[in-house]
């Protein structure tokens, strides 16, 4: 088994989760998968991943809410959060206030449609 960090990939598009996971596994990261915000929070508490790749628009609990829960919990706040967002034009900093008033404390973001190679570069920069 790989000794590399555990990364949680969260998106309600399972094909995207699989595409990102396969890239990460090829780079020998350990990967966990979740398909909505609630499931993501369960896995974050249970598995304590090093980094979370987090879609914004998801059923049950969206990515902004998940990010806030992570960053406001003392025992989780060190987990790195990379948001995947289709509304990246509205993002000015990585600790931003969204147009609709939602604030997140994500460490980084990647605009959708994502460039998988660019995403891997960002992950590598945090993990190495």
């Amino acid at each position, binding site marked *: 088994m790989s000794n590399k960090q555990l990364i949680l990939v969260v998106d309600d*598009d*399972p*094909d995207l989760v699989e595409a990102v996971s396969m890239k990460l596994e090829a780079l020998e990261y350990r990967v966990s*998968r979740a*398909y*909505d915000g609630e499931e993501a929070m369960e896995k974050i508490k249970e598995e304590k991943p090093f980094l979370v790749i987090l879609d914004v*628009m998801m059923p049950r609990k969206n990515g902004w809410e998940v990010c806030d829960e992570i960053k406001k919990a003392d025992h989780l706040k060190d987990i790195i959060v990379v948001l995947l967002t289709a509304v990246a034009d509205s993002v000015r900093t990585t600790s931003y206030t969204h147009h*609709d008033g939602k604030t997140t404390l994500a460490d980084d973001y990647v605009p959708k*449609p994502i460039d*998988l190679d660019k995403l891997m570069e960002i992950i590598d920069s945090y993990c190495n």
Partner: protein
Amino acid sequence: MTDSVKINGIRLNKKFIQVTQDDILLKMPDRAFLYEALESRKINMVCMILNTMGNRTFVSGTIASKNFGQNVHTAGDWQCNPDICTVSVYPHHHRLEFLGLMLQLLGEQKHFFHYMVSSNSMLTFVQDEDHSLRFTKMLSDGFDLPRSHAPFEQEENDEQALFVKKRYPETRATYVEEKIKTYGMVLTTGLNLNVYEFSFDHLSGFGQRLRSLNTHDCFSNVSAYMTPDQQIHLFLLTGKPQIDLGQKVYPAELLSFHGPHFGDRHGIMSRTLQCLQNHEIPVLQACCTGASIHILLQKGRGTKAKQALTTVFENP
């Protein structure tokens, strides 16, 4: 639980209608293909299979009942099957061990289905809605599902999602682009398409035999349909030919691609198939479920197909 075969999730979607057009290789003047008719009406297919192999050539799509008005019922030479659902399973890996157990359970518990289609992340069954709960129970009992899995059935009226969709058109899959974005096209060559035909009564045994092969072998694509007389027609694309199981094996190639909003894909499959037809590239099978498109081609056709499709799709 029968065995510890991991899956990542199960998804149930209801209130669909299945629309099927047969004999698609027959030349008929002014005939519209099902996917073209749906594209012109902006009707999405959540799942589709097109087959040009064997005795039965057809295209069959799964469409939300609410989107399928009377004008489409009578607009072409297709049959409609109401009260349909889709059940998708997200395998942990596309191993023959997973597929074998799935088919074994289906056979043992007599779960009939109309179609089975795979993508990079899921295996989707199109079946009668009446059986959906029994089907999901079979899956959750038979496989090792994460304790914290998402609900099998998603709520439709998620206020947050509706708010975001309304506010940010980019998150809607209303394609107006000249070239539709993809995450890239992957061509896999040197594959073998194993074709099987057997009675449903033999499905469980077939699944067991599949499991007895090298359990770490993977499949690249699988599709199947079941006829009213309970015959299964199954098409399994693998790296190694499964000669001990296969009745017929053909060398084949797989062109697969996936895009940011391919889940809403009215037009995407249509543009793909029209492009390949214009370039006179025959398609063995075309499948889509989730957000992926899989095109099965004869050996040696993949490179030309990929080049042709880059004129229609953006391929980073």
